[in-house]
């Protein structure tokens, strides 16, 4: 056991002392924050440029009330000038565009005939804003036409939230799905990143030992299995440390940057959402609902989430990095790894795809359920499903299968590893690997 500790220690130190590791650890968060801040800064600058839009309302149904100026768009009524003249002004660059509302017999026809003219094609957020205004107004006009009291409509709006229960006592709510999606997606994505970065790091470390030929000396002192396990644990520890430092640095630097430059980091996310949608979202979150959400968050099984996250994170990493170790042992240099990498990376990517494509729409559907039980995709898919509540028997099956597969794959990889580390020269084929697995002792 102490030999394993020695190996873990050496692998950890060798990894951590590596210059590129140090640079990556301290530079990446700075880069991420700086890039993020830059994006926010540019977006702010972009938003500060106010668009000037004019409208020509031939129908006479629209008023200045409907085209209220917003932070980014100013509206002017040029109905008096007529469309042809206004268009000329737009062409001259006096305005950013002209909205033309023709006179039509019916509202339906009108809704389809409104046009927007500009030199450059307008951005999505501008068009969404215009459409939202026009649609709301036309709807209101129709309601009035049907003699429905607008005040009553407003008063009849009610917040409803159907709570969902399953028979294992898990409770969920549609409202909090966004949060669950975020938690699941971040967890799944983190795991994939971690496996890709540190799995290949395990592989590289095996190849390095092979090319420097020290491996034969090491395995004359320790079992190849110990060496492999030591490498995996050592690299995982270095990786966790790096993630931990990244987390702290990102947090600290964000605070510093936002303090110095006055950029709200939350805006980095928020600014991606068009203003009107943001407002709509804000409206939806009335105090009642906010309280509901807070209740939901407090009801999320945080401890369970955390424990399962650790389990699947480490289980997934160990499963995959043992495969990476076997690949490293099988080849002489990194260029030869390609042919063996695809079958390792494919299930990882599949897991992420399944996670994003199916879990979010139907967290307990057949594909999501199956993929969260199959060991190669389960770490990612299950991590994404857990926030939605997964029945205990599915969890037990999935975890048990992961452990069994993990032990089996480590055993299998150790066999390939044991033979591979002492093989030089020939680039092995899958047939060779199969033969190595069958070697005794």
């Amino acid at each position, binding site marked *: 056991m102490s*030999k394993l500790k*020695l*190996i873990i220690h*050496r692998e950890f130190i*060798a990894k951590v002392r590596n210059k590129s590791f140090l640079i990556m650890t301290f530079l990446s968060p700075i880069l991420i924050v700086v890039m993020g801040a830059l994006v926010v800064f540019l977006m702010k600058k972009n938003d500060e440029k106010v668009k000037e839009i004019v409208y020509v309302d031939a129908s006479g149904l629209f008023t200045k009330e409907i085209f209220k100026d917003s932070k980014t768009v100013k509206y002017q009524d040029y109905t008096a000038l007529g469309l042809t003249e206004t268009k000329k002004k737009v062409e001259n660059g006096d305005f950013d565009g002209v909205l033309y509302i023709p006179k039509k017999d019916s509202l339906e026809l009108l809704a389809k005939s409104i046009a927007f003219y500009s030199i450059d094609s307008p951005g999505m957020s501008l068009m969404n804003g215009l459409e939202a205004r026009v649609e709301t107004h036309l709807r209101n006009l129709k309601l009035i036409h049907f003699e429905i009291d607008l005040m009553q409509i407003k008063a009849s709006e009610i917040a409803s939230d159907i709570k969902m229960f399953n028979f294992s006592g898990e409770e969920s709510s549609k409202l909090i799905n966004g949060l669950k999606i975020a938690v699941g997606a971040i967890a799944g994505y983190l795991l994939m990143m971690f496996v890709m970065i540190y799995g290949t790091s395990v592989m590289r470390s095996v190849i*390095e*030992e092979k090319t*420097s*030929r*020290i*491996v*034969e*000396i*090491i*395995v*004359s*002192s*320790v*079992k*190849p299995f110990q060496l492999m396990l030591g490498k995996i644990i050592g690299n995982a520890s270095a990786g966790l440390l790096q993630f931990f430092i990244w987390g702290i640095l990102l947090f600290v630097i964000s605070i510093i940057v936002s303090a110095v430059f006055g950029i709200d980091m939350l805006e980095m996310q928020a600014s991606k959402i068009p203003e009107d949608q943001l407002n709509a979202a804000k409206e939806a979150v009335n105090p009642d609902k906010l309280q509901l959400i807070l209740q939901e968050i407090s009801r999320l099984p945080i401890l369970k989430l955390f424990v399962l996250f650790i389990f699947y994170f480490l289980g997934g990493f160990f499963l995959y990095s043992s495969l990476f170790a076997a690949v490293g042992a099988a080849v002489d240099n990194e260029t030869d790894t390609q042919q063996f990498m695809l079958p390792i990376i494919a299930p990882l990517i599949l897991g992420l795809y399944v996670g994003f494509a199916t879990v979010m729409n139907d967290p307990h559907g057949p594909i999501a359920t199956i993929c969260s039980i199959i060991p190669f995709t389960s770490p990612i898919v299950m991590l994404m499903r857990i926030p939605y509540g997964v029945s205990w028997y599915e969890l037990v099956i999935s975890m048990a299968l992961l452990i069994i597969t993990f032990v089996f794959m480590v055993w299998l990889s150790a066999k390939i590893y*044991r033979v591979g580390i*002492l093989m*030089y020269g020939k680039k092995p084929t899958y047939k060779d690997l199969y*033969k190595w697995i*069958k*070697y*005794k*002792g």
Partner: protein
Amino acid sequence: MNNLLEIKNVVKTYGDFTALNNVSLTIPRGSVFGLLGPNGAGKTSLIRIINQITMQDTGEVYFDGKLLAPNDVEHIGYMPEERGLYKSMKVGEQALYLAQLKGLSKSEAKKRLKYWFDKFDISAWWNKKIEELSKGMAQKVQFIVTVMHKPKLLIFDEPFSGFDPINAQLIAKEILQLRAEGTTIIFSTHRMESVEEMCDYIALIDQSNKILEGKLDDIKRAFRTNTFQVGLATTNPNEVEAKLKQLYAVSPADFRIINAGLKLNVTLKKGENPNDLLSFLTSQGHVQHFVELVPDVNEIFMQAVNKNS
């Protein structure tokens, strides 16, 4: 127990390929044992089994009287043919790490390393990385990490390859010193001159089979041909040669000597006394050269391998 290592009927196969076919060896305590054989004969397979890097399919290995056990690696030092150290790791740290893997405590390892580093006068390298050292310097470090845990058994695979003559001599001296202290040493090599100088026992492996094993002197004795190389200063060499041919099997010889009228290889039959040959020769002229032709290890090696194939 006079034998440190006993290998009994070891078989090792890789798929369809048999690397070791029922090989048995006995390695006496305190000896230098030469494990000889052409490339691909199975030497490295055998060494890896002794080092427990791989396991034999069948057969047993006894170390110090007991079946070879995992902890025995602490009493074995192994220098593989392909030398290797962590290139970007510092010399001292690396040696400490490898010593600890061999079961030494950190403080003990430090003490031993200091002794060896002083002995080889390389203490200044402690904080250098291996990649900063020359090949010869790295070889010295390699030797130290092989022997520092005072193993009972040392295994050197082609120990002198890669060493320059001065370092090779230094290492040879250290190896003989270790033997004097009671260490048993296995040499795996196909460089025969070093075998002649250092080995007490040899075993020859060819095509997965052991074809020869024993004390070097005994083997040489077994391979003697009873042939004598003679040089005679005589006035009538043709007459003497004719007479010799009647008595013995004679063939022309090629060696360098001054003043010899007659140069011949004379092969005695079993039971014939070389003294009779010598007295016959002295009666015919001045004997200037009389040497028994004993095959060197190289010739034994070639003969045995040829006979085997």
